[in-house]
Protein backbone atom coordinates (compact mmCIF):
# COMPACT_ATOMS: atom_id res chain seq x y z
CA UNK A 1 0.00 0.00 0.00
CA UNK A 2 1.23 3.48 -0.76
CA UNK A 3 2.38 5.84 1.96
CA UNK A 4 -0.52 8.16 1.17
CA UNK A 5 -3.22 5.56 1.69
CA UNK A 6 -1.49 4.01 4.68
CA UNK A 7 -2.03 7.26 6.54
CA UNK A 8 -5.79 6.94 6.04
CA UNK A 9 -6.03 3.31 7.08
CA UNK A 10 -3.83 3.62 10.16
CA UNK A 11 -4.82 6.94 11.56
CA UNK A 12 -8.43 6.41 12.54
CA UNK A 13 -11.46 4.23 13.04
CA UNK A 14 -13.93 3.54 10.27
CA UNK A 15 -16.62 5.72 11.80
CA UNK A 16 -14.47 8.85 11.92
CA UNK A 17 -13.29 8.18 8.37
CA UNK A 18 -16.88 7.78 7.19
CA UNK A 19 -17.89 10.99 8.92
CA UNK A 20 -15.11 12.88 7.17
CA UNK A 21 -16.05 11.30 3.85
CA UNK A 22 -19.70 12.22 4.37
CA UNK A 23 -18.60 15.78 5.14
CA UNK A 24 -16.61 15.93 1.90
CA UNK A 25 -19.50 14.52 -0.15
CA UNK A 26 -21.99 16.94 1.46
CA UNK A 27 -19.78 19.94 0.70
CA UNK A 28 -19.23 18.83 -2.89
CA UNK A 29 -22.92 18.15 -3.50
CA UNK A 30 -24.17 21.29 -1.74
CA UNK A 31 -22.09 23.38 -4.09
CA UNK A 32 -23.79 21.66 -7.01
CA UNK A 33 -27.25 21.90 -5.42
CA UNK A 34 -26.99 25.62 -4.70
CA UNK A 35 -24.83 26.88 -7.55
CA UNK A 36 -25.03 24.21 -10.23
CA UNK A 37 -26.77 24.32 -13.56
CA UNK A 38 -29.84 22.59 -12.13
CA UNK A 39 -30.25 24.93 -9.16
CA UNK A 40 -32.13 27.62 -11.11
CA UNK A 41 -35.34 25.59 -11.16
CA UNK A 42 -35.11 24.97 -7.42
CA UNK A 43 -34.93 28.68 -6.69
CA UNK A 44 -37.87 29.22 -8.99
CA UNK A 45 -39.93 26.56 -7.18
CA UNK A 46 -38.95 27.94 -3.76
CA UNK A 47 -39.95 31.47 -4.74
CA UNK A 48 -43.26 30.40 -6.29
CA UNK A 49 -45.46 30.85 -3.15
CA UNK A 50 -43.93 34.22 -2.37
CA UNK A 51 -45.15 35.81 -5.59
CA UNK A 52 -48.93 35.66 -4.89
CA UNK A 53 -48.30 36.72 -1.29
CA UNK A 54 -46.27 39.69 -2.50
CA UNK A 55 -49.11 40.69 -4.80
CA UNK A 56 -51.59 40.28 -1.96
CA UNK A 57 -49.38 42.45 0.24
CA UNK A 58 -49.44 45.24 -2.32
CA UNK A 59 -53.00 44.89 -3.63
CA UNK A 60 -55.36 44.09 -0.77
CA UNK A 61 -58.42 42.10 -1.99
CA UNK A 62 -61.73 43.92 -1.44
CA UNK A 63 -63.40 41.13 0.57
CA UNK A 64 -63.82 41.67 4.32
CA UNK A 65 -62.03 38.46 5.23
CA UNK A 66 -58.70 40.07 4.47
CA UNK A 67 -59.37 42.62 7.18
CA UNK A 68 -59.86 39.89 9.78
CA UNK A 69 -56.59 39.02 11.55
CA UNK A 70 -57.90 35.68 12.87
CA UNK A 71 -58.96 34.56 9.39
CA UNK A 72 -55.36 34.62 8.21
CA UNK A 73 -54.30 31.49 10.11
CA UNK A 74 -56.98 29.44 8.32
CA UNK A 75 -55.98 30.92 4.97
CA UNK A 76 -52.33 30.14 5.58
CA UNK A 77 -53.15 26.55 6.60
CA UNK A 78 -54.89 26.03 3.24
CA UNK A 79 -52.19 27.92 1.33
CA UNK A 80 -49.44 25.91 3.06
CA UNK A 81 -51.12 22.53 2.57
CA UNK A 82 -52.12 23.13 -1.04
CA UNK A 83 -49.25 25.10 -2.50
CA UNK A 84 -46.20 24.86 -0.27
CA UNK A 85 -46.42 21.30 1.01
CA UNK A 86 -48.10 19.45 -1.83
CA UNK A 87 -46.53 21.35 -4.70
CA UNK A 88 -43.40 23.31 -3.77
CA UNK A 89 -41.86 20.88 -1.30
CA UNK A 90 -43.02 17.85 -3.30
CA UNK A 91 -41.65 18.93 -6.69
CA UNK A 92 -38.67 20.69 -5.14
CA UNK A 93 -37.65 17.50 -3.36
CA UNK A 94 -38.34 15.50 -6.52
CA UNK A 95 -35.94 17.71 -8.48
CA UNK A 96 -33.23 17.86 -5.83
CA UNK A 97 -33.18 14.23 -4.74
CA UNK A 98 -33.77 12.54 -8.08
CA UNK A 99 -30.86 14.46 -9.54
CA UNK A 100 -28.46 13.38 -6.81
CA UNK A 101 -27.75 10.17 -8.72
CA UNK A 102 -29.77 10.48 -11.93
CA UNK A 103 -28.13 13.85 -12.66
CA UNK A 104 -24.68 12.29 -12.29
CA UNK A 105 -25.66 9.54 -14.71
CA UNK A 106 -26.93 12.11 -17.21
CA UNK A 107 -23.70 14.12 -16.81
CA UNK A 108 -21.63 10.89 -16.99
CA UNK A 109 -19.75 11.76 -13.83
CA UNK A 110 -20.96 9.13 -11.37
CA UNK A 111 -17.88 6.98 -11.97
CA UNK A 112 -15.69 9.54 -10.16
CA UNK A 113 -17.52 8.66 -6.94
CA UNK A 114 -17.57 4.95 -7.70
CA UNK A 115 -13.81 4.96 -8.28
CA UNK A 116 -13.08 6.66 -4.94
CA UNK A 117 -12.13 4.74 -1.82
CA UNK A 118 -15.51 5.25 -0.24
CA UNK A 119 -18.25 2.77 0.61
CA UNK A 120 -21.22 3.25 -1.65
CA UNK A 121 -23.53 3.29 1.37
CA UNK A 122 -21.54 6.24 2.71
CA UNK A 123 -22.06 7.92 -0.64
CA UNK A 124 -25.84 7.46 -0.32
CA UNK A 125 -25.82 9.00 3.15
CA UNK A 126 -23.63 11.92 2.04
CA UNK A 127 -25.73 12.67 -1.02
CA UNK A 128 -28.99 12.34 0.91
CA UNK A 129 -27.78 14.73 3.61
CA UNK A 130 -26.66 17.26 1.02
CA UNK A 131 -30.08 17.11 -0.63
CA UNK A 132 -31.78 17.34 2.75
CA UNK A 133 -29.83 20.41 3.83
CA UNK A 134 -30.53 22.09 0.49
CA UNK A 135 -34.24 21.30 0.63
CA UNK A 136 -34.58 22.31 4.28
CA UNK A 137 -32.77 25.63 3.79
CA UNK A 138 -34.84 26.57 0.74
CA UNK A 139 -38.27 25.26 1.64
CA UNK A 140 -38.19 26.09 5.34
CA UNK A 141 -37.16 29.54 4.20
CA UNK A 142 -40.17 29.59 1.87
CA UNK A 143 -42.45 28.45 4.70
CA UNK A 144 -41.25 31.05 7.17
CA UNK A 145 -41.04 33.97 4.72
CA UNK A 146 -44.47 33.24 3.25
CA UNK A 147 -46.08 33.18 6.71
CA UNK A 148 -44.44 36.47 7.65
CA UNK A 149 -45.33 37.94 4.27
CA UNK A 150 -48.97 37.12 4.85
CA UNK A 151 -49.18 38.71 8.30
CA UNK A 152 -46.71 41.57 8.55
CA UNK A 153 -47.69 43.89 5.66
CA UNK A 154 -51.32 44.30 6.71
CA UNK A 155 -51.33 43.82 10.50
CA UNK A 156 -47.80 44.80 11.43
CA UNK A 157 -47.98 45.59 15.15
CA UNK A 158 -50.64 42.94 15.83
CA UNK A 159 -48.52 40.40 13.95
CA UNK A 160 -45.35 41.27 15.85
CA UNK A 161 -47.21 40.67 19.14
CA UNK A 162 -48.72 37.47 17.68
CA UNK A 163 -45.31 36.05 16.73
CA UNK A 164 -43.48 37.18 19.86
CA UNK A 165 -46.07 36.81 22.60
CA UNK A 166 -48.92 34.79 21.09
CA UNK A 167 -49.38 31.53 19.20
CA UNK A 168 -47.68 32.79 16.04
CA UNK A 169 -44.18 31.64 16.85
CA UNK A 170 -45.34 28.16 17.81
CA UNK A 171 -47.30 27.95 14.56
CA UNK A 172 -44.31 29.14 12.61
CA UNK A 173 -42.09 26.49 14.21
CA UNK A 174 -44.69 23.79 13.61
CA UNK A 175 -45.01 24.64 9.92
CA UNK A 176 -41.23 24.73 9.62
CA UNK A 177 -41.07 21.33 11.35
CA UNK A 178 -43.65 19.87 8.97
CA UNK A 179 -41.62 21.19 6.01
CA UNK A 180 -38.49 19.56 7.41
CA UNK A 181 -40.31 16.25 7.89
CA UNK A 182 -41.69 16.49 4.36
CA UNK A 183 -38.17 17.02 3.02
CA UNK A 184 -36.96 13.99 4.98
CA UNK A 185 -39.77 11.73 3.73
CA UNK A 186 -40.11 12.88 0.13
CA UNK A 187 -36.33 13.18 -0.13
CA UNK A 188 -35.73 9.54 0.73
CA UNK A 189 -38.49 8.43 -1.64
CA UNK A 190 -37.19 10.44 -4.58
CA UNK A 191 -33.59 9.44 -3.95
CA UNK A 192 -34.61 5.80 -4.33
CA UNK A 193 -36.76 6.54 -7.36
CA UNK A 194 -33.77 8.24 -9.00
CA UNK A 195 -31.75 5.07 -8.45
CA UNK A 196 -34.31 2.61 -9.73
CA UNK A 197 -36.15 4.36 -12.54
CA UNK A 198 -34.68 5.75 -15.72
CA UNK A 199 -37.46 8.32 -16.14
CA UNK A 200 -38.40 9.44 -12.61
CA UNK A 201 -41.13 11.81 -13.80
CA UNK A 202 -43.67 8.98 -14.05
CA UNK A 203 -43.39 7.74 -10.44
CA UNK A 204 -43.30 11.37 -9.27
CA UNK A 205 -46.60 12.10 -11.03
CA UNK A 206 -48.13 8.86 -9.70
CA UNK A 207 -47.14 9.78 -6.11
CA UNK A 208 -48.36 13.33 -6.66
CA UNK A 209 -51.78 11.98 -7.68
CA UNK A 210 -51.82 9.58 -4.73
CA UNK A 211 -51.00 12.37 -2.30
CA UNK A 212 -53.67 14.69 -3.77
CA UNK A 213 -56.33 11.98 -3.72
CA UNK A 214 -55.45 11.10 -0.15
CA UNK A 215 -58.62 12.81 1.18
CA UNK A 216 -60.76 10.33 -0.78
CA UNK A 217 -58.96 7.22 0.44
CA UNK A 218 -60.25 4.93 3.19
CA UNK A 219 -58.48 5.42 6.55
CA UNK A 220 -56.17 2.41 6.13
CA UNK A 221 -54.89 3.54 2.70
CA UNK A 222 -54.47 7.09 3.94
CA UNK A 223 -51.70 5.81 6.17
CA UNK A 224 -49.70 4.71 3.12
CA UNK A 225 -48.82 8.26 2.23
CA UNK A 226 -46.55 11.00 3.44
CA UNK A 227 -49.20 13.71 3.36
CA UNK A 228 -51.46 11.95 5.87
CA UNK A 229 -48.78 12.10 8.56
CA UNK A 230 -47.85 15.66 7.69
CA UNK A 231 -51.49 16.83 7.78
CA UNK A 232 -51.84 15.18 11.17
CA UNK A 233 -49.19 17.55 12.49
CA UNK A 234 -50.70 20.73 11.06
CA UNK A 235 -51.38 23.38 13.76
CA UNK A 236 -54.57 24.56 12.05
CA UNK A 237 -56.80 21.83 10.60
CA UNK A 238 -58.03 22.39 7.06
CA UNK A 239 -61.32 21.12 5.72
CA UNK A 240 -60.77 18.65 2.87
CA UNK A 241 -64.19 19.24 1.36
CA UNK A 242 -67.56 17.49 1.39
CA UNK A 243 -66.32 14.30 -0.31
CA UNK A 244 -63.41 13.69 2.05
CA UNK A 245 -63.27 10.44 3.98
CA UNK A 246 -62.58 11.54 7.51
CA UNK A 247 -59.89 9.69 9.41
CA UNK A 248 -58.41 10.24 12.84
CA UNK A 249 -55.16 12.22 12.56
CA UNK A 250 -52.12 10.23 13.63
CA UNK A 251 -50.66 11.57 16.88
CA UNK A 252 -47.29 13.30 16.55
CA UNK A 253 -45.53 10.71 18.70
CA UNK A 254 -46.50 8.06 16.14
CA UNK A 255 -46.35 10.20 12.97
CA UNK A 256 -42.80 11.51 13.44
CA UNK A 257 -41.07 8.23 14.41
CA UNK A 258 -43.03 6.37 11.70
CA UNK A 259 -41.80 8.74 9.03
CA UNK A 260 -38.25 8.50 10.35
CA UNK A 261 -38.42 4.72 10.36
CA UNK A 262 -39.77 4.56 6.81
CA UNK A 263 -37.02 6.99 5.73
CA UNK A 264 -34.33 4.78 7.25
CA UNK A 265 -35.79 1.71 5.51
CA UNK A 266 -35.96 3.53 2.19
CA UNK A 267 -32.36 4.71 2.57
CA UNK A 268 -31.29 1.15 3.37
CA UNK A 269 -32.94 0.05 0.11
CA UNK A 270 -31.06 2.84 -1.69
CA UNK A 271 -27.79 1.67 -0.11
CA UNK A 272 -28.41 -1.89 -1.23
CA UNK A 273 -29.32 -0.76 -4.72
CA UNK A 274 -26.23 1.40 -5.16
CA UNK A 275 -23.93 -1.31 -3.81
CA UNK A 276 -24.83 -3.42 -6.83
CA UNK A 277 -25.18 -0.61 -9.32
CA UNK A 278 -23.21 -0.65 -12.57
CA UNK A 279 -21.98 2.36 -14.51
CA UNK A 280 -23.12 1.92 -18.10
CA UNK A 281 -23.82 5.40 -19.34
CA UNK A 282 -24.59 4.18 -22.83
CA UNK A 283 -27.64 2.28 -21.65
CA UNK A 284 -28.88 5.11 -19.44
Amino acid at each position, binding site marked *: *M*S*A*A*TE*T*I*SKQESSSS*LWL*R*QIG*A*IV*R*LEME*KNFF*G*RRSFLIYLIALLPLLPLLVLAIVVPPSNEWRDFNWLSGFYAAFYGGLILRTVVFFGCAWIFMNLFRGEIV*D*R*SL*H*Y*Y*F*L*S*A*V*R*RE*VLVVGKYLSGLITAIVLFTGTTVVSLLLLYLPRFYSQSVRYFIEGQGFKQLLTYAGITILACIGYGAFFLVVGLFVRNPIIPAVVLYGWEWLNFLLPPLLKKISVIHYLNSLAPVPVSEGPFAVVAEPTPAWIAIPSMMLVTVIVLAIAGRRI*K*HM*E*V*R*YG*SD
Partner: protein
Amino acid sequence: MTHVNDQLIIFNDVSKFYGEILGVNRVNLQIAPGITSLVGPNGAGKSTLMNLMTGLLRPTKGTIKILGISVDDPERLFRKVGYCTQFDSFPRGVTGRELLVSFLLVAGFKRKQANELALQALERVNLVEAADRKVAGYSKGMRQRIRLAQAIAHEPVVLILDEPLNGLDPMVRSETIALFRKLAAEGLHLIISSHILHEVDMMSDRVVLLNNGYIVAQGNVHGVRDEMEEHPMQIFIRCDNPSKLASFVFAQDHVVEARLNEDRGGLFIKTRDADRFYLLLNQAVANGEINIEAVAPVDDDLSAVYQYLIGNSGGAA
Protein backbone atom coordinates in the same frame (compact mmCIF):
# COMPACT_ATOMS: atom_id res chain seq x y z
CA MET B 1 2.25 -13.24 6.16
CA THR B 2 1.57 -12.10 2.60
CA HIS B 3 -0.19 -14.72 0.50
CA VAL B 4 1.01 -15.02 -3.09
CA ASN B 5 -2.51 -14.26 -4.34
CA ASP B 6 -2.31 -10.93 -2.53
CA GLN B 7 0.24 -9.86 -5.14
CA LEU B 8 -1.88 -10.81 -8.15
CA ILE B 9 -4.96 -9.67 -10.01
CA ILE B 10 -7.03 -12.81 -10.46
CA PHE B 11 -9.97 -13.40 -12.77
CA ASN B 12 -11.61 -16.70 -11.97
CA ASP B 13 -13.88 -17.93 -14.77
CA VAL B 14 -15.37 -14.48 -15.30
CA SER B 15 -18.14 -13.89 -17.81
CA LYS B 16 -20.11 -10.75 -18.47
CA PHE B 17 -23.22 -10.56 -20.60
CA TYR B 18 -25.19 -7.41 -21.42
CA GLY B 19 -28.54 -9.10 -21.72
CA GLU B 20 -28.03 -11.36 -24.73
CA ILE B 21 -24.83 -9.66 -25.80
CA LEU B 22 -21.49 -11.11 -24.80
CA GLY B 23 -19.03 -8.79 -23.08
CA VAL B 24 -16.35 -11.29 -22.07
CA ASN B 25 -16.59 -15.03 -21.61
CA ARG B 26 -14.79 -17.49 -19.34
CA VAL B 27 -11.88 -15.26 -18.54
CA ASN B 28 -9.21 -16.84 -16.38
CA LEU B 29 -6.29 -14.53 -15.78
CA GLN B 30 -3.54 -13.97 -13.27
CA ILE B 31 -1.76 -10.66 -13.63
CA ALA B 32 1.55 -10.08 -11.86
CA PRO B 33 3.25 -6.70 -11.26
CA GLY B 34 4.65 -4.93 -14.32
CA ILE B 35 2.97 -3.61 -17.43
CA THR B 36 0.26 -5.81 -18.87
CA SER B 37 -1.44 -4.63 -22.04
CA LEU B 38 -4.90 -5.59 -23.17
CA VAL B 39 -4.96 -5.69 -26.93
CA GLY B 40 -7.82 -6.33 -29.29
CA PRO B 41 -10.13 -4.70 -31.79
CA ASN B 42 -13.07 -2.50 -30.82
CA GLY B 43 -15.65 -4.58 -28.98
CA ALA B 44 -13.12 -7.24 -28.04
CA GLY B 45 -13.86 -6.78 -24.33
CA LYS B 46 -10.91 -4.67 -23.16
CA SER B 47 -12.93 -1.93 -21.45
CA THR B 48 -15.36 -4.52 -20.11
CA LEU B 49 -12.47 -6.32 -18.39
CA MET B 50 -11.25 -3.04 -16.92
CA ASN B 51 -14.70 -2.01 -15.74
CA LEU B 52 -15.15 -5.45 -14.16
CA MET B 53 -11.80 -5.06 -12.38
CA THR B 54 -12.95 -1.81 -10.81
CA GLY B 55 -16.52 -2.72 -9.93
CA LEU B 56 -18.09 -0.37 -12.48
CA LEU B 57 -19.53 -3.55 -13.98
CA ARG B 58 -20.46 -6.71 -12.15
CA PRO B 59 -19.64 -10.12 -13.55
CA THR B 60 -22.53 -12.29 -14.63
CA LYS B 61 -20.44 -15.23 -13.47
CA GLY B 62 -17.12 -15.74 -11.73
CA THR B 63 -15.05 -13.73 -9.27
CA ILE B 64 -12.35 -11.07 -9.46
CA LYS B 65 -9.82 -10.26 -6.78
CA ILE B 66 -7.32 -7.44 -6.92
CA LEU B 67 -4.37 -8.14 -4.62
CA GLY B 68 -6.68 -10.28 -2.50
CA ILE B 69 -9.43 -7.62 -2.30
CA SER B 70 -12.90 -8.20 -3.68
CA VAL B 71 -14.09 -5.63 -6.20
CA ASP B 72 -17.23 -5.34 -4.05
CA ASP B 73 -15.24 -3.50 -1.40
CA PRO B 74 -14.51 -0.07 -2.92
CA GLU B 75 -13.27 1.42 0.32
CA ARG B 76 -10.31 -1.00 0.46
CA LEU B 77 -10.01 -1.54 -3.29
CA PHE B 78 -9.50 2.08 -4.30
CA ARG B 79 -6.87 2.70 -1.70
CA LYS B 80 -4.78 0.43 -3.91
CA VAL B 81 -6.31 0.90 -7.33
CA GLY B 82 -6.48 3.89 -9.66
CA TYR B 83 -8.50 3.76 -12.85
CA CYS B 84 -8.23 6.13 -15.79
CA THR B 85 -11.41 5.43 -17.71
CA GLN B 86 -12.27 6.23 -21.30
CA PHE B 87 -15.25 8.35 -20.20
CA ASP B 88 -14.36 11.82 -21.43
CA SER B 89 -16.68 13.56 -19.00
CA PHE B 90 -16.18 15.53 -15.81
CA PRO B 91 -18.29 17.03 -13.03
CA ARG B 92 -19.56 20.38 -14.27
CA GLY B 93 -17.63 23.55 -13.65
CA VAL B 94 -14.58 22.07 -11.90
CA THR B 95 -10.98 23.08 -12.43
CA GLY B 96 -8.30 20.42 -12.77
CA ARG B 97 -7.09 20.97 -9.22
CA GLU B 98 -10.62 20.96 -7.77
CA LEU B 99 -11.33 17.66 -9.51
CA LEU B 100 -8.32 15.99 -7.88
CA VAL B 101 -8.68 17.58 -4.45
CA SER B 102 -12.43 17.01 -4.13
CA PHE B 103 -12.21 13.28 -4.81
CA LEU B 104 -9.16 12.90 -2.57
CA LEU B 105 -11.28 14.47 0.18
CA VAL B 106 -14.11 12.06 -0.62
CA ALA B 107 -11.59 9.21 -0.28
CA GLY B 108 -10.90 10.44 3.24
CA PHE B 109 -7.68 12.42 2.90
CA LYS B 110 -7.38 15.55 5.01
CA ARG B 111 -7.36 18.86 3.15
CA LYS B 112 -3.61 19.52 3.51
CA GLN B 113 -2.62 16.08 2.29
CA ALA B 114 -5.21 16.20 -0.49
CA ASN B 115 -3.72 19.47 -1.73
CA GLU B 116 -0.20 18.03 -1.65
CA LEU B 117 -1.16 14.80 -3.44
CA ALA B 118 -3.10 16.73 -6.07
CA LEU B 119 -0.10 18.95 -6.75
CA GLN B 120 2.23 15.95 -7.04
CA ALA B 121 -0.12 14.29 -9.52
CA LEU B 122 -0.44 17.50 -11.53
CA GLU B 123 3.34 17.76 -11.66
CA ARG B 124 3.68 14.16 -12.86
CA VAL B 125 1.40 14.83 -15.82
CA ASN B 126 2.73 18.34 -16.49
CA LEU B 127 -0.53 20.13 -15.83
CA VAL B 128 0.44 22.48 -13.00
CA GLU B 129 0.07 25.61 -15.11
CA ALA B 130 -3.44 24.67 -16.22
CA ALA B 131 -4.48 23.33 -12.82
CA ASP B 132 -6.74 26.24 -11.96
CA ARG B 133 -8.48 26.43 -15.31
CA LYS B 134 -11.86 24.82 -15.88
CA VAL B 135 -11.55 21.27 -17.22
CA ALA B 136 -14.28 22.09 -19.75
CA GLY B 137 -11.77 24.41 -21.47
CA TYR B 138 -9.01 21.79 -21.68
CA SER B 139 -7.82 20.29 -24.95
CA LYS B 140 -8.35 16.57 -25.53
CA GLY B 141 -4.78 15.81 -24.51
CA MET B 142 -5.11 17.86 -21.32
CA ARG B 143 -8.35 16.11 -20.43
CA GLN B 144 -6.59 12.79 -20.90
CA ARG B 145 -3.78 13.93 -18.64
CA ILE B 146 -6.09 15.22 -15.90
CA ARG B 147 -7.85 11.83 -15.91
CA LEU B 148 -4.46 10.17 -15.57
CA ALA B 149 -3.60 12.54 -12.71
CA GLN B 150 -6.88 11.64 -11.03
CA ALA B 151 -6.03 7.96 -11.30
CA ILE B 152 -2.55 8.31 -9.80
CA ALA B 153 -3.20 11.08 -7.25
CA HIS B 154 -3.77 8.75 -4.28
CA GLU B 155 -0.60 6.79 -5.15
CA PRO B 156 -2.22 3.46 -6.01
CA VAL B 157 -0.24 0.24 -6.47
CA VAL B 158 -2.50 -0.96 -9.26
CA LEU B 159 -3.09 1.40 -12.13
CA ILE B 160 -5.69 0.55 -14.74
CA LEU B 161 -5.56 2.72 -17.83
CA ASP B 162 -8.06 2.53 -20.65
CA GLU B 163 -6.46 3.88 -23.84
CA PRO B 164 -4.31 6.33 -21.83
CA LEU B 165 -2.30 7.53 -24.83
CA ASN B 166 -5.32 8.64 -26.84
CA GLY B 167 -5.23 12.30 -27.76
CA LEU B 168 -1.68 12.88 -26.56
CA ASP B 169 0.86 14.51 -28.85
CA PRO B 170 4.05 12.53 -29.64
CA MET B 171 6.16 14.35 -27.06
CA VAL B 172 3.67 13.80 -24.24
CA ARG B 173 3.14 10.21 -25.41
CA SER B 174 6.77 9.35 -24.93
CA GLU B 175 6.82 11.16 -21.56
CA THR B 176 3.73 9.23 -20.50
CA ILE B 177 5.21 5.91 -21.59
CA ALA B 178 8.35 6.78 -19.62
CA LEU B 179 6.13 7.52 -16.61
CA PHE B 180 4.44 4.12 -16.99
CA ARG B 181 7.80 2.39 -17.14
CA LYS B 182 8.96 4.24 -14.06
CA LEU B 183 5.81 3.25 -12.17
CA ALA B 184 6.20 -0.38 -13.26
CA ALA B 185 9.83 -0.32 -12.15
CA GLU B 186 8.59 0.85 -8.75
CA GLY B 187 6.65 -2.43 -8.50
CA LEU B 188 3.21 -1.24 -9.57
CA HIS B 189 0.74 -3.27 -11.59
CA LEU B 190 -0.11 -1.37 -14.75
CA ILE B 191 -2.90 -2.70 -16.90
CA ILE B 192 -3.14 -0.74 -20.09
CA SER B 193 -5.45 -1.07 -23.04
CA SER B 194 -4.27 0.31 -26.32
CA HIS B 195 -4.76 -0.20 -29.99
CA ILE B 196 -1.38 1.26 -30.96
CA LEU B 197 0.53 -1.97 -31.21
CA HIS B 198 4.08 -0.70 -31.55
CA GLU B 199 3.67 1.32 -28.37
CA VAL B 200 2.22 -1.65 -26.54
CA ASP B 201 5.08 -3.79 -27.84
CA MET B 202 7.57 -1.21 -26.61
CA MET B 203 6.31 -0.87 -23.07
CA SER B 204 4.60 -4.13 -22.11
CA ASP B 205 5.99 -6.96 -20.04
CA ARG B 206 3.13 -9.13 -21.19
CA VAL B 207 0.04 -8.89 -23.34
CA VAL B 208 -3.47 -10.25 -23.22
CA LEU B 209 -5.00 -10.55 -26.66
CA LEU B 210 -8.77 -10.39 -26.76
CA ASN B 211 -11.20 -10.97 -29.55
CA ASN B 212 -15.01 -11.15 -29.42
CA GLY B 213 -14.96 -11.39 -25.64
CA TYR B 214 -12.50 -14.25 -25.43
CA ILE B 215 -8.83 -14.28 -24.48
CA VAL B 216 -7.04 -15.64 -27.51
CA ALA B 217 -3.51 -15.46 -26.11
CA GLN B 218 -1.66 -14.14 -23.10
CA GLY B 219 1.90 -13.86 -21.91
CA ASN B 220 5.16 -12.42 -23.09
CA VAL B 221 4.90 -11.36 -26.76
CA HIS B 222 7.80 -13.58 -27.83
CA GLY B 223 6.48 -16.49 -25.82
CA VAL B 224 3.09 -16.13 -27.47
CA ARG B 225 4.75 -15.91 -30.88
CA ASP B 226 6.82 -19.02 -30.23
CA GLU B 227 3.73 -21.05 -29.50
CA MET B 228 2.07 -20.22 -32.79
CA GLU B 229 3.19 -23.30 -34.64
CA GLU B 230 0.72 -22.84 -37.49
CA HIS B 231 2.55 -19.60 -38.33
CA PRO B 232 6.28 -20.38 -38.81
CA MET B 233 8.59 -17.60 -37.66
CA GLN B 234 9.95 -15.38 -40.42
CA ILE B 235 13.60 -14.35 -40.17
CA PHE B 236 15.58 -12.15 -42.51
CA ILE B 237 19.34 -12.77 -42.83
CA ARG B 238 21.56 -10.34 -44.71
CA CYS B 239 24.74 -12.17 -45.70
CA ASP B 240 27.43 -12.47 -48.40
CA ASN B 241 26.07 -15.67 -49.93
CA PRO B 242 22.33 -16.04 -49.50
CA SER B 243 22.02 -18.80 -52.15
CA LYS B 244 24.43 -21.02 -50.29
CA LEU B 245 22.68 -20.30 -47.03
CA ALA B 246 19.35 -21.16 -48.68
CA SER B 247 20.52 -24.56 -49.81
CA PHE B 248 22.11 -25.18 -46.42
CA VAL B 249 19.04 -24.35 -44.31
CA PHE B 250 16.48 -25.84 -46.65
CA ALA B 251 17.74 -29.31 -45.80
CA GLN B 252 16.49 -28.80 -42.24
CA ASP B 253 13.05 -30.23 -41.46
CA HIS B 254 11.97 -27.22 -39.37
CA VAL B 255 12.62 -24.76 -42.20
CA VAL B 256 9.50 -24.60 -44.33
CA GLU B 257 10.44 -21.82 -46.73
CA ALA B 258 13.59 -20.01 -47.90
CA ARG B 259 13.29 -17.09 -50.30
CA LEU B 260 15.96 -14.79 -51.70
CA ASN B 261 15.49 -11.09 -51.16
CA GLU B 262 14.88 -9.00 -54.28
CA ASP B 263 18.37 -7.43 -54.08
CA ARG B 264 19.86 -10.93 -53.71
CA GLY B 265 21.77 -9.68 -50.70
CA GLY B 266 19.65 -11.47 -48.14
CA LEU B 267 17.40 -14.37 -47.43
CA PHE B 268 13.92 -14.72 -45.88
CA ILE B 269 13.31 -18.01 -44.19
CA LYS B 270 10.30 -19.43 -42.35
CA THR B 271 11.00 -21.87 -39.56
CA ARG B 272 8.89 -23.79 -37.07
CA ASP B 273 11.72 -23.74 -34.55
CA ALA B 274 13.53 -20.42 -34.34
CA ASP B 275 15.90 -21.60 -31.58
CA ARG B 276 17.17 -24.52 -33.68
CA PHE B 277 17.52 -22.22 -36.65
CA TYR B 278 19.64 -19.69 -34.74
CA LEU B 279 21.82 -22.58 -33.51
CA LEU B 280 22.26 -23.75 -37.08
CA LEU B 281 23.15 -20.26 -38.21
CA ASN B 282 25.78 -20.00 -35.48
CA GLN B 283 27.35 -23.26 -36.68
CA ALA B 284 27.43 -22.03 -40.28
CA VAL B 285 29.15 -18.82 -39.21
CA ALA B 286 31.57 -20.70 -36.96
CA ASN B 287 32.48 -23.03 -39.81
CA GLY B 288 33.25 -20.01 -41.99
CA GLU B 289 30.66 -20.99 -44.58
CA ILE B 290 28.99 -17.59 -44.68
CA ASN B 291 29.48 -14.06 -43.38
CA ILE B 292 26.43 -12.55 -41.82
CA GLU B 293 25.76 -8.80 -41.70
CA ALA B 294 22.42 -8.82 -39.93
CA VAL B 295 19.71 -11.11 -38.61
CA ALA B 296 16.25 -9.81 -37.84
CA PRO B 297 13.03 -11.59 -36.96
CA VAL B 298 10.35 -10.23 -39.27
CA ASP B 299 7.21 -11.23 -37.44
CA ASP B 300 8.30 -11.68 -33.84
CA ASP B 301 6.37 -8.69 -32.59
CA LEU B 302 2.92 -7.82 -31.36
CA SER B 303 1.72 -6.61 -34.75
CA ALA B 304 2.43 -9.98 -36.29
CA VAL B 305 0.96 -11.88 -33.37
CA TYR B 306 -2.13 -9.69 -33.55
CA GLN B 307 -2.39 -10.15 -37.30
CA TYR B 308 -2.09 -13.92 -37.06
CA LEU B 309 -4.46 -14.38 -34.15
CA ILE B 310 -7.03 -11.70 -34.79
CA GLY B 311 -6.38 -10.56 -38.34
CA ASN B 312 -8.51 -7.77 -39.66
CA SER B 313 -11.69 -8.92 -37.96
CA GLY B 314 -11.80 -5.92 -35.64
CA GLY B 315 -10.05 -3.35 -37.63
CA ALA B 316 -9.14 -1.19 -34.66
CA ALA B 317 -5.48 -2.04 -34.67
